[in-house]
């Protein structure tokens, strides 16, 4: 169940990145895509009857696999890092072009390149 939800979230995120033209919303959707993949990873380590993987002696109790959880900690931080940077880049683009519409930005960048000549 949790794995399926993760995949669905990933799908929603991808569609939103492709359809919504506002760059800020695109970034939110990217966050959703990443969150979906992370949910998948957490889901595979879990079993309904499991315990939390914090225990001194763990032989006789069944607990959730700690490895995916440890991996996910890294992944969450990495995704935050990417989002923060991407947001800053959007801010710079807005400062330059006064729009967050991706098509619009694409046109304006193209126009700048055509006018200014590429290096």
């Amino acid at each position, binding site marked *: 169940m949790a794995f399926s939800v993760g995949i669905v979230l*990933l799908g929603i995120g991808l569609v939103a990145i492709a359809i919504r033209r506002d*760059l800020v919303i695109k970034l939110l959707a990217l966050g959703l895509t990443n969150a979906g*993949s*992370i949910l998948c990873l957490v889901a595979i380590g879990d079993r309904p009857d499991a315990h939390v993987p914090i225990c001194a002696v763990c032989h006789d109790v069944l607990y959730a696999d700690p490895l995916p959880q440890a991996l996910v900690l*890294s992944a969450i931080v990495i995704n935050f890092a990417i989002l923060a*940077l991407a947001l800053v*880049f959007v801010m710079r*683009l807005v400062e330059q072009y006064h729009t967050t519409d991706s098509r619009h930005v*694409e046109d304006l960048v193209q126009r700048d390149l055509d006018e200014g000549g590429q290096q």
Partner: protein
Amino acid sequence: MILAVLPLSRFVLGVLCYAGKRVSRTVAAVGWCATAALSIYLLIATRDGATITIGLGGWAAELGIVVRFDAVAAAFSPLVVLLELAVLLYARKEDRAPLFYALLQFLLGAVFALLLAQDLFNEYVILELLTLVSFLLVGYERRPAQIWASLKYLVLASIGMSLFLVGVALIYRHTGTLNLSQIGGIIQGRPEADWIPLATVLLVVGVSVKAGVLGLSQWLPAAHSAAPTEISALLSGLVIKMGVVVLLRVSQVFPLGLTLQALGAVTAVVGVLYAAYAKSLKRMLAFSTLSQIGYLVLGLAIGTPEALAGVLDYAIAHGLFKGLLFLAAGEAARAAGGGRFEELAAHRELIPRATTTALFVGTLAIVGLPPLAGFGAKSALFACHPSPFVFAVFIVTTVGTAFAFAKLLPLFRWRRGARRSDRTSAYAVLAVPILFFIPFTVTTFPSLHLATGLEPLLVIESLGAVAAGLLLHRWLGHRAVRLPKRLFFLEEAVLGILLAWLLAAILLRAV
């Protein structure tokens, strides 16, 4: 022990770079010397094809992270050393800030870490670090075009890595490990297991975005042509290959064949098409990188040990000549006051002679004229008897590359009294191995057993391809063709990733 030091020391040096401008240059020099020494030591230690494996933190493969110095790492480390030297020599004249050198250290540390990595999640983290650092370096000068290119790069790479992570989840679920050789062992035990195709598609498509395979790589031309010169050289010569390295490691474990053939063929042909009609030099080089990534992926698809050796050989050769071309293109564009072909041709007397020579050497190598780097590597790929389809793609790409680079011909008229370049040493570092590529590879990688002879048939084939390219240029070169730009927009790129995923899934029978 050296294996852990190689990447980690680079990160330490990166932090030290902040002490100031002069310190950062010293640190960069120290870092280069140390890496060169360590690489030479490792190459000598693995001359006989041996590998060195250690578990970081003293843990075995099922618990911790294992790093290994194998043929792939051995093949790439001389390239890293040479490219880094050239970039440092070039950047000396550019007056870069400490941040630049710090990021450079991080980038190279991550490159080494990736060359040594044997663990799926470890590769994920390193790829993300690479993405982020190169993302910063692409937009380093903060021009809007660079920022937009970086943003697209980041979004697409992040989508790719999300898919990769889902693949990792599936694999871990079924094998209980992340170590690639252990996974390989489990898969060999049950090659028919139903989950394997699905996991493979997720992994391969995820990595392909990073590696710049078309349908997934719309960020590449924008990012590589917009970046500062040295960074373009590093990205095209080295960083993009890291995706190929991961793809190679994955393809050694998971059966991929047809998927890679399809993706590689499309990339190679489309890349060369766009390169042929690009209007500026840097953009053409970027598209040509795209086509050559397709080439490498086709080599991976053949899958025999000789083909893998050929892939490594070509990756190194491409790193050398593409690095050289990008460096020279940067200086040429600045000297001529613009990077478009008409501007370059109009002001060609302003371009220093060393730069023109470097462009010339790079062009000869990239079109595969014997006995330069491009030829040696290409012959290694041809020698492994590809299928007629792959062979046809090889021929089309070679002819197309010659056609595209024929646009540089007006620059190559010999003339007197041209200006002197102050970056000659940077070019020399790359040009010398290109000119003496065959002896260079034979002495550096004895364990790869490369096919290096100048077989008459191959020589004729390559000369024929170049001649065909030149003839095409005579006939069609003046025609201006506008290829659709939409292919490289962000929304279309997302659709491209999805479609490529579906194609790969169908080819691998994951449905």
